């Protein structure tokens, strides 16, 4: 099991961060190697919403499945993995705290790449490192997207 923990200050209110976190349209921009997302039921995140992603692992097209497991508006958002995809286990927890100057975001990822899904011939260490890098870049991208502004005077 690999664990990634990141804390960062987003220079925007919790509403802006929450808006990005709970809109599935943003998912391909949050994780570099996720290509697209389909969610059931459609629309904004809700507890129990199933999510399926196409992703790339090197030159391979892979599939990842998750489910929204917990939502405390403007405070906590959690997603867990579902069986039958490239990750045997997956847990993503994002906690928000309003602070002076913006929002303090604490992110925890725990995951395990599925040996059974990839089979022999794949370098599990490299796959694990690629997944870890995606989780780390999630934090940077969440900050950038939450801090976007409208054009002046519009």
């Amino acid at each position, binding site marked *: 099991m690999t664990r990634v923990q990141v804390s960062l200050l987003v220079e925007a209110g919790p509403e802006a961060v929450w808006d990005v976190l709970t809109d599935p*349209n943003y998912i391909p*921009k949050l994780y570099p190697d996720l290509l*697209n997302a389909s969610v059931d039921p459609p629309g904004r995140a809700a507890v129990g919403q199933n999510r399926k992603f196409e992703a790339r692992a090197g030159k*391979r097209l892979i599939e990842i499945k998750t489910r929204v497991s917990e939502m405390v508006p403007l405070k906590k958002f959690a997603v867990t993995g579902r069986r039958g995809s490239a990750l045997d286990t997956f847990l993503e927890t994002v906690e928000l705290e309003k602070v002076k100057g913006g929002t303090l975001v604490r992110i925890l990822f725990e995951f395990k790449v599925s040996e059974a899904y990839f089979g022999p011939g794949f370098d599990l260490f490299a796959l694990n490192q690629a997944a870890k890098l995606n989780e780390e870049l999630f934090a940077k991208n969440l900050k950038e997207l939450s*801090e*976007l502004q409208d*054009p002046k005077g519009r």
Partner: protein
Amino acid sequence: MTRVEDIVEIEAPKSTVWKVLTDSSYLPKLYPDVITVEVEPHGPLNVGSKAKILARLGKVRVEVYVEVTRADSEYCFASRQSPGGLFSAFSQEVLLEGLVQRTKVKTVFEYTLVHEYASTISQEEFLDSRVADNLKWYTRNLKELAELIPMPE
């Protein structure tokens, strides 16, 4: 009017390239600064499909509106700008030519930024080069996505 043109050979059949370029869910990956895309009607892009695109330029959020004008299966895909948003004029044409187990793809973009819109964002020259970079990346990303190999069932 700025023109961006590119030609690549993709190691995938025309059907795969066509599937990627007409699937709107891939657009945020094809253009680096596109964030989200809403398409009406839902489903693969076809003549008459209208897209509302949210993109970023530096730290600013911008909107782009386009409509598909041509979708000759596995041969030619074209779109143009709809009123509103970042462009006063925008057109995209993608031509596919089948080779043995490969596809030659030619893309041509032509666009003009809305001056008043652009000036609210940043220096217009910077903006123009950023837009041009995105359009150049489109073809490279199309190649990368179309060449991905599915996992065996």
